[in-house]
């Protein structure tokens, strides 16, 4: 019953057609008619992208906000997030091994479900990443102010947004002009962060379990009942967005059949465990009310509680690095997702032009950096996080739907190296959970998210309704 892959058809309103050429994929390179594209990212690189993008938010920004809403049960919220992320990471891995191309979720959905779904997801992902990056930057601003405070320079929270804006602009400019290999630096940062966390969690965990240090009275696990656990899960889901960023570099990953599933599922498992433990240790140490009052940088006080000034400095330093690496990794993913959409002529193709002087995609980076700065200026941490999650969750749900659609009537070209275990239950649950989590968000976030999706539909109808991408590999 299979259909062969069909060439893309149609053109956008400017007369541009999708630029797709037949390719042969090997473990080491993608071979087109006239040239080869080297695959240079190994498993370590993939894990560093996944973990590096995710760890900043979950550990260093959310504990205070989450404990405020759900009490010690915030651990459960993070666990729910991990389960949902895992249910999506498995289907996403299957699709990524079947279509190891840059573009990630957008690519799977446009090929599996057609152009309209693809356009909505592709353009929404652009905005989703922009919201996520703005959120990381605001988190970074809070840590920068705290760093100054630890150094004895009290500047107050008024400087959070200006600092975040300054660094946001800085990252964009660096990404346009910088040609140094920052990937190795990213690997180092992730390794350093993981070591800081393991030391902190080991000591804090022993203390919380009453083995060392003074004993504390446990508080009620879920002081406000079960409902806040789910709303908090919806809020903190932003901490799990990074695994799909691994799929945006699928075209550059060596041995994609092995490394893509391992880095996506592996990074979700690693950060999920770390999140749950961190929240447990944090709420045991200070109590959720105190944590809630401390807000975005509550973890600094948790560090001080367990390990004294050294702990506070380690967490402040870790928080700076982690939010910075999240923001930077997201700027890169944003530019890649803009490229994927414009290659298929859903955006003007000049958006993927490369700058002759630096060899970097300056138009796409600008289209990422500009909106990021505008959103950072709002400084609304929870709204930014939830809208980012909303737009990603829609994509995650549709990834699962695309998998089921492709599996029900497998086209000839569909030959994944990794097949999701527990089909069809896992992808079906993944889709249901992704959409259900949206229902627990604040109304404001849902309106903004839905508004953005509506705009993308309008754009599709105006600009690119004649383009046919389904099955166009």
């Amino acid at each position, binding site marked *: 019953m299979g259909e062969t892959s069909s060439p893309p058809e149609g053109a956008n309103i400017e007369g541009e057609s999708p*630029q797709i050429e037949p390719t042969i994929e090997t473990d*080491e*390179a*993608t071979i*087109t008619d*006239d*040239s*080869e*594209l*080297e695959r*240079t*990212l*190994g*498993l*370590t*690189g993939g894990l560093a992208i996944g973990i590096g993008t995710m760890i900043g938010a979950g550990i260093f920004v959310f504990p205070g906000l989450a404990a405020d809403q759900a009490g010690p049960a915030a651990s459960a919220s993070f666990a729910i997030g991990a389960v949902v992320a895992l249910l999506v990471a498995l289907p996403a891995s299957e699709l990524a091994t079947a279509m190891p*191309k*840059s573009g990630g979720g957008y690519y799977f959905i446009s090929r599996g479900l057609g152009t309209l779904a693809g356009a909505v997801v592709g353009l929404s992902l652009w905005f989703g990443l922009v919201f996520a990056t703005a959120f990381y930057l605001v988190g970074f601003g809070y840590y920068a102010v705290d760093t100054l405070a630890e150094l004895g320079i009290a500047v107050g929270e008024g400087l959070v947004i200006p600092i975040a804006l300054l660094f946001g602009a800085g990252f964009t400019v660096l*990404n*346009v002009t*910088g*040609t*140094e*290999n*920052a*990937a*190795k630096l990213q690997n180092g940062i992730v390794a350093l962060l993981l070591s800081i966390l393991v030391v902190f969690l080991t000591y804090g965990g022993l203390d919380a379990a009453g083995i060392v240090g003074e004993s504390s009275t446990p508080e009620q696990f879920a002081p406000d009942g079960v409902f806040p656990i789910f709303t908090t899960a919806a809020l903190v889901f932003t901490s799990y967005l990074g695994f799909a960023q691994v799929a945006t*570099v699928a*075209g*550059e990953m060596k041995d994609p059949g092995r490394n893509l599933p391992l880095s996506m599922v592996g990074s979700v498992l690693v950060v999920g465990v770390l999140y749950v433990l961190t929240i447990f240790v944090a709420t045991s140490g200070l109590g959720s009310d105190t944590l809630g009052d401390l807000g975005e940088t509550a973890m600094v006080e948790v560090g001080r509680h367990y390990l004294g000034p050294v702990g506070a400095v380690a967490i402040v330093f870790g928080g700076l690095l982690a939010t910075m690496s999240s923001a930077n990794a997201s700027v*890169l993913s944003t*530019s*890649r997702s803009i*490229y994927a959409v414009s*290659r298929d002529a859903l955006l003007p193709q000049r958006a*993927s*032009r*490369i700058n002759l002087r*630096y*060899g*970097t*995609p300056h138009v796409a*980076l600008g289209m990422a950096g500009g909106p990021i700065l505008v959103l950072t200026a709002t400084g609304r941490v929870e709204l930014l996080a939830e809208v980012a999650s909303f737009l990603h969750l829609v994509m995650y749900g549709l990834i699962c739907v695309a998998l089921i659609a492709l599996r029900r009537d497998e086209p000839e070209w569909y030959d994944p190296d990794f097949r999701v275990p527990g089909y069809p239950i896992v992808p079906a649950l993944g889709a249901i959970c992704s959409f259900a989590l949206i229902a627990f968000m604040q109304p404001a976030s849902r309106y903004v998210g839905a508004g953005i999706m509506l705009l993308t539909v309008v754009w599709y109808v105006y600009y690119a309704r004649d383009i046919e991408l389904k099955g166009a590999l």
Partner: protein
Amino acid sequence: MTRILVPLAILEGESVSAGLVDLLEPMDVTVLGYHVLPEQTPPDQARLQYEERATDALEDLAAEFGAEAGTADYRLVFTHDRKQTVDRVADVTDAGVYAIPGATGPVERLLVALTGDVAVDRIVSFVGELVGDRDIAVTLFLATDDASGGRELLETATTPLVDQAIDVRTELAVDEPPLEALVDAAVDHDAIVMGERAPSLRTLVFGEEAERVAAESVGPVLVVRRGEDDETTAAEEPTSLEES
């Protein structure tokens, strides 16, 4: 016939000198046009923009090396990692030698370095193949601590070349820093042939020896790759170093 890979940063205007083209003329040549991209740029994105321009340039270059006679072809690769690309394409095309193109006029005298843990037999037989019956003189160079052993090695290496009626000279540097001695010896030579060394801590810190020789000596360097038999030593290296 040994195939020689000539990697060129094609979009940065890197090209080959007439002297190198003449030197490699009797051999099979694969011109590897590569373009290294910063990690912000997906290779596919660069391909869309640059493929045509790069292919035009490569076609001309391959023609110089004798594409029409069927002894030369070309490949174009967009990559984040130059070394990985050169190694992969050399494996795929079964190239035993790669070239670091430098500037040189007509090649009249070749310097052949046999220093260190390299496959002397393969280097010497490649030189024999390269020189053929052309009027190119050869200097065999060895830097070592063991004067008598070194003299013996040079003598054994000389024999097959002399049998082929090649004008061979030897140069032995005892107890001198090998790299400096090689660069000094290169002064009155037009090109260098050397063997690829097993990756070590030194190469990790200072870069490939051949690259440093090429930078110091200006002229082209032909590097005889380590073969399958030499891989046993490499297998002990931790593979994680290769991941970036």
